[in-house]
């Protein structure tokens, strides 16, 4: 029988040292390399990484670790990490920002830390600086250019397009547009009234099912199918996804149908208790500044929110874009998600 030379104390000491070293090393490294974690939409990862984050590195010397997901997932992560947040900054849609703000997960920003906050268009700063819109994308019907441009939202219900239409899940914010359009087509009421006619929306949307190829939660996969021609249209898709692909040569385009399109403001906010709060202010200020907004406007054909930045060519007349009651959407979306699964699919 061998005699072991491992002593409990030395084993515990070595283990303890290992744990301390492994836990402390990343924070030391982070401190040295000036990193910041931003949570945001997966669909924006490509153009953020290629065009925005290099500017942040150049201006602020900061390396961004980007966690791309959908807004609801990022909200869940924020709730789970609220005691020790991992994100410093989040980029999310307004209805999710409402939930994050209600849940006490955001830290208000002000012009003292974020000077560009004072230069934004009216309505772009929410709840006394709880979050701000850094861009205003717009939504319509994304289509494959080989299959012809749609004229009206009702074209999605055309029987000739059986199995060729994709719509976003109600889990994604843009999923609401199809429910709203369906309510509008069913009731004949203008968007401002139809947005509350959810029963009618579900009824009409049910008749779209034979035409559906897929209901997506993963936007890049849906765009891929549209580019390949497997799908002819994605209802409720927005400019930041579709027009970036068009600019890269993909055979896709975005059309605002006769009934109108939708405004879809994107927000940026500072996470309450998040790491590197001063750096978070600087990053948010850069997102609200003219330089990054000009890049985003050119890349994604979104309207900037900084009054000093020019609205890009090709951006639709803001009067043709409907902005819904986001507070109502935020409040009701959970119930709609239940109905979506049980009644529609």
């Amino acid at each position: 029988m061998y005699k072991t030379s491992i002593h409990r104390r030395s084993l515990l000491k070595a283990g303890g040292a290992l744990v301390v070293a492994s836990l402390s090393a990343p924070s030391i490294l982070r401190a040295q390399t000036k990193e910041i974690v931003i949570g945001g939409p997966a669909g924006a990862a490509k153009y953020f990484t290629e065009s925005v984050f290099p500017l942040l590195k150049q201006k602020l010397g900061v390396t961004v670790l980007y966690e791309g997901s959908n807004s609801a997932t990022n909200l869940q992560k924020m709730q789970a990490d609220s005691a020790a947040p991992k994100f410093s900054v989040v980029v999310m849609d307004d209805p999710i920002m409402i939930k994050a703000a209600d849940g006490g997960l955001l830290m208000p920003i002000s012009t003292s830390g974020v000077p560009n906050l004072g230069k934004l268009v009216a309505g772009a700063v929410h709840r006394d600086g709880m979050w701000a819109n850094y861009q205003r994308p717009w939504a319509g019907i994304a289509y494959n250019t080989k299959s012809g441009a749609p004229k009206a939202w009702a074209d999605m219900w055309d029987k000739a397009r059986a199995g060729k239409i994709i719509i976003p899940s109600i889990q994604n914010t843009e999923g609401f547009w199809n429910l709203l359009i369906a309510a509008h087509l069913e009731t004949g009421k203008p968007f401002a009234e139809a947005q509350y006619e959810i029963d009618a929306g579900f009824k009409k949307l049910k008749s779209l099912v034979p035409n559906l190829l897929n209901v997506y939660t993963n936007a890049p996969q849906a765009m891929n199918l549209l580019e390949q021609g497997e799908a002819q249209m994605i209802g409720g898709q927005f400019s930041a996804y579709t027009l970036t692909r068009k600019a890269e040569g993909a055979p896709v385009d975005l059309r605002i149908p006769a009934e109108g399109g939708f405004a879809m403001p994107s927000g940026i906010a500072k996470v309450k208790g998040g790491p590197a709060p001063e750096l978070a202010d600087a990053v948010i200020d850069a997102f609200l500044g003219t330089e990054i907004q000009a890049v985003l406007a050119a890349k994604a054909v979104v309207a900037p929110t900084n009054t000093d930045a020019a609205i890009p060519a090709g951006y639709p007349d803001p009067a043709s874009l409907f902005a819904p009651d986001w507070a109502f959407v935020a409040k009701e979306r959970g119930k709609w998600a239940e109905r979506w699964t049980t009644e529609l699919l």
Partner: protein
Amino acid sequence: MTEAMPAPPKLSDPERRTAFLLSLPAAMILLIMFILPLGLLLGVSFTGPEGFSLAAYQRLLTTPHYLSVIWNSLKLALVTTALTFLIGYPASFAIARARGGWRSLMLGCLFLPLAASVIVKAFAWTILLRSDGIINSTLMLLGIIDEPVRMIFTQTALIVGSANVFLPFMILPIFAVVAQLDPRLGEAAAMLGANPAVAFLKVTLPVTMPGIIAGVALVFSLSVSAYVVPTLLIGERYPTLAATIAKAYLLTQQPAFGAAAGVVLLSIAIAVVILSSRFGRSSGGLS
């Protein structure tokens, strides 16, 4: 066929202490990373607005929609398991009987796809199955179909993709057993008068049963809880328990319901593993 395992030698007190210390890190990991979260999950699943509640289970197990969701997960797991077995069982023999470079090549073909992400494989299937994909093009070239058949976002696509992703987990345990088999077993059965079918049913199948059971338990457990494969290959139109859990936590913010769905999913997987091991013991395979 079953051999009795020799009893482990008795350990002295210092040896026991050393064994205890050495097992401590693994035990702590199991406790912190597995048992504790499962306990919390179980606790959350029985909560309601006013404390203890069975409402989440009642809703999950009595609503027709959620019963169909449970059935969807079970159906996916059952069909995937059956398909991977039908492909994997003969494939395991082919690999085990191959020699030299052929065996290395076959094992390479089995292991290399494991290095690719499930997401990549799911995307690859959407390319293969699309209207102008290689499968539709080949079928049209052979005159089997006149125009492309819709294959993506169908249950067929889901089953094919799922079987592809989980096939190695069926082959590897069966291969591990088959590789140890004495090839003369078949000859012995033949010498005793068994025809090939009888030799297979009475000799080969029983002795490979431990591998089959391990493969079935692995593939069933993985496919019943699969999230990425159904999400990418069929989407929301084939709701599963895994997708229901994600939606409950991420969108509808109903942690008790999500936890209850998690407990039901885990119970199904545990039941299959227990049944498999019991069946394995009673089938009298190689120990």
